């Protein structure tokens, strides 16, 4: 039972994470797409017919059959993935649950005798930037709900009651970016980043603290939130990342940065150029297609990934065929090995040179506007200190405890 924020990418994640066969479910209108329909038929997807799709040909009576298929699968010990919100969206919080999942579960227990002991496992899917290439995602399994036991305890409950109090909010808070800076020097480009689980762990703790404090110290929290928003807005206007506010204007560090980035920029340029030239056409094609097809942020990744499965291998096959027909075997082998490697390399290279350029620009901006840097840094540290001081009020027994301690995904 995952939340649903990234269209056709979401169902792939539980399958990969669980490493077992998972029966997927989807809205009936997706079956009309010939390519997807073929793929999903192979995967044994069960289609649900939604009321809002009746005008597009959905037949609500078909749901009886779909529910039965689900129960049969459960009887055979299968795992079924159902998105209870029934729609993919970009809202900051979860939408109301449809009752289909609860009805299937309750009927399975009450009518089929609950063979195997059905459990509903909440799954949280959080993306760092779902509308970006190579976004990180955090997949977290919640505490499973033993449906049989729950029904024993609530014999008269209806389907809507099953998931009350089980929704989770997702809030991306600017404060987390400020906390992540630690008020200190930014990490070197290309170094190991904190894991996405730790990042969302920090967000979850902040969110929890924010909610608690909002109830008891609303005025302080609102004032601090306003400062955070103002600080973030100014950084955005200047094109400076929160982590780079504390960039040291030290000549030796700048020289080290220059050596490190120049080494990669110069040595990597031939590989990156090769990769870019050989993948530019499918890259632009997929991007254009995704832009044309995506009406909302939650569709972007699906419209990139699924066409990419087809476009990139086909294009590379065409290239390789041409190369093996025209070049000597030795060079054809080299080219074949270099093609996927340089394609991946070009993506990393573009990210890295972009980051290096931004950091260099920030360095020079601060070099000529030292007052601005010290003001921004003071404000950042002051916000950090205010958050920590509020946090201590939540955890009076552990002053100075790290904010993200215990956050593991």
């Amino acid at each position: 039972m995952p939340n649903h924020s990234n269209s056709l990418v979401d169902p792939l994640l539980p399958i990969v994470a669980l490493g077992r066969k998972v029966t997927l479910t989807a809205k009936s209108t997706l079956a009309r797409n010939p390519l997807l329909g073929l793929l999903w038929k192979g995967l044994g997807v069960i289609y649900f017919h939604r009321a809002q799709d009746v005008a597009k040909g959905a037949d609500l009576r078909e749901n009886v059959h779909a529910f039965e298929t689900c129960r049969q699968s459960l009887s055979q010990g299968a795992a079924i993935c159902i998105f209870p919100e029934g729609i993919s969206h970009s809202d900051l919080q979860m939408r109301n649950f449809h009752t289909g999942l609860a009805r299937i579960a309750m009927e399975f227990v009450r009518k089929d005798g609950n063979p195997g002991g059905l459990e509903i496992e909440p799954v949280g899917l959080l993306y760092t930037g779902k509308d970006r290439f190579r976004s990180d995602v955090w997949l977290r399994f919640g505490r499973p709900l033993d449906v049989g036991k729950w029904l024993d305890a609530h014999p008269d409950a209806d389907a809507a009651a099953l998931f009350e109090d089980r929704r989770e909010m997702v809030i991306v808070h600017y404060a987390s970016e400020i906390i992540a800076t630690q008020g200190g020097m930014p990490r070197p480009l290309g170094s190991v980043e904190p894991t996405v689980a730790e990042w969302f762990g920090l967000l979850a703790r902040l969110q929890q603290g924010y909610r608690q404090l909002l109830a008891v110290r609303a005025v302080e929290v609102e004032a601090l939130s306003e400062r955070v928003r103002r600080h973030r807005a100014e950084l955005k206007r200047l094109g400076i990342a929160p982590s780079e506010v504390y960039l040291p204007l030290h000549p030796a560090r700048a020289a080290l940065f220059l050596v490190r980035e120049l080494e990669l920029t110069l040595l990597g340029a031939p590989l990156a150029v090769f990769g870019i030239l050989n993948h530019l056409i499918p890259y632009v094609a997929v991007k254009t297609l995704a832009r044309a097809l995506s009406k909302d942020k939650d569709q972007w990744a699906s419209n990139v990934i699924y066409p990419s499965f087809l476009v990139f291998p086909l294009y590379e096959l065409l290239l390789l065929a041409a190369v093996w027909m025209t070049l000597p075997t030795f060079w054809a082998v080299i080219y074949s090995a270099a093609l996927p490697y340089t394609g991946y390399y070009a993506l990393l290279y573009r990210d890295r040179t972009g980051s290096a350029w931004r950091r260099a620009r920030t360095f020079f901006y601060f070099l000529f506007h030292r007052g601005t840097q010290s003001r921004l840094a003071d404000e950042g540290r002051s916000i950090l200190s205010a958050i920590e001081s509020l946090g201590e009020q939540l955890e009076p027994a552990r002053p100075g405890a790290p904010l993200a301690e215990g956050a593991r995904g």
Partner: protein
Amino acid sequence: MRFRGLQLEIHPIDWVIVGLLLVAVVVGAARLRSQQPELYPLLTQHLSVLAGFLAFAAAAIRWQRSWWVIYARPVIAAAIIYSLYTSLGLLGMSAMGYRADAALSRIDAALFGGTDPTFLIEHWITPARVELFAFFYVLFLAYVNLSLVLGALGRPPLERDQFFTGWVSTYAFCYLGYIFLPAHGPGVFHAAAYHVPLMGGYFYQLILRTTAATGGELGVFPSLHGGASVYLCNFDLGTNRLRGLTYVPIVILIFMATVVLRIHYVIDLIVGTAVALTCRRIGPRVLGRWARLRHAEGLPALPGGEADVLPALSNIRGGRVTSVLSAY
């Protein structure tokens, strides 16, 4: 109890270097009677280096909270490792009454269907190709030294010490091969059998001059050109992926260069790679465990008192620092 205290005080890098120097001294001393004229200066040299390094290790313990220890150790370790490059090769050649060339060449021939690979590529050798590969062979030095500088200055403290522990271990284990399995390499061993002599330009001449200046081809098994470059590349792939990927083709070319230039047997490269990957895996773990134990005993986790790394110590998974976020 006393040994445990010492174990926590002495940095793993120091243990490795002291161990290697002790092996050199013991081998030199054991073979002194039969090989006296050649071994005496080598034994004296290694004993002096050992005494000097022990003095440094003692000073590093005495002033373990001082900032200079952080930078002195990598510099001194690298200086000693480089100085041993020639001296241990000479020691192996002088102390051992045998050469491993015949066995290494046989293994290579077995790997390549009965013929030493340097003969298989002989017809393909041209001065231009020799010069091209000589360039990549020389590039190794730039790669290693730039990596060391960036490793010493540009990495977070724990990662930096892990990096150097693995690097020093790679060299130390490969040097054991230099001592116990001395060999000259295919270029010397098969010198009379080649039909195509190697001729190149500036870079090839540079290699010849450098080799002659350091006493000739002394010690080739396992290959440090292979081992060290694999270690550096592999470490970067885990901590700075783009740099690691950038050097993958260069490492492959360095491997090819050692064979084309008839400096290494293929088995040297294979064993060098195995040593490097083992040290890449074990070195950071050993360092991480050592730092955790020191932290638990109330000592600074790393010499130099770099307390900023402490929160990361609980997150060393598979020898890789995965998180510093818990410090926020």
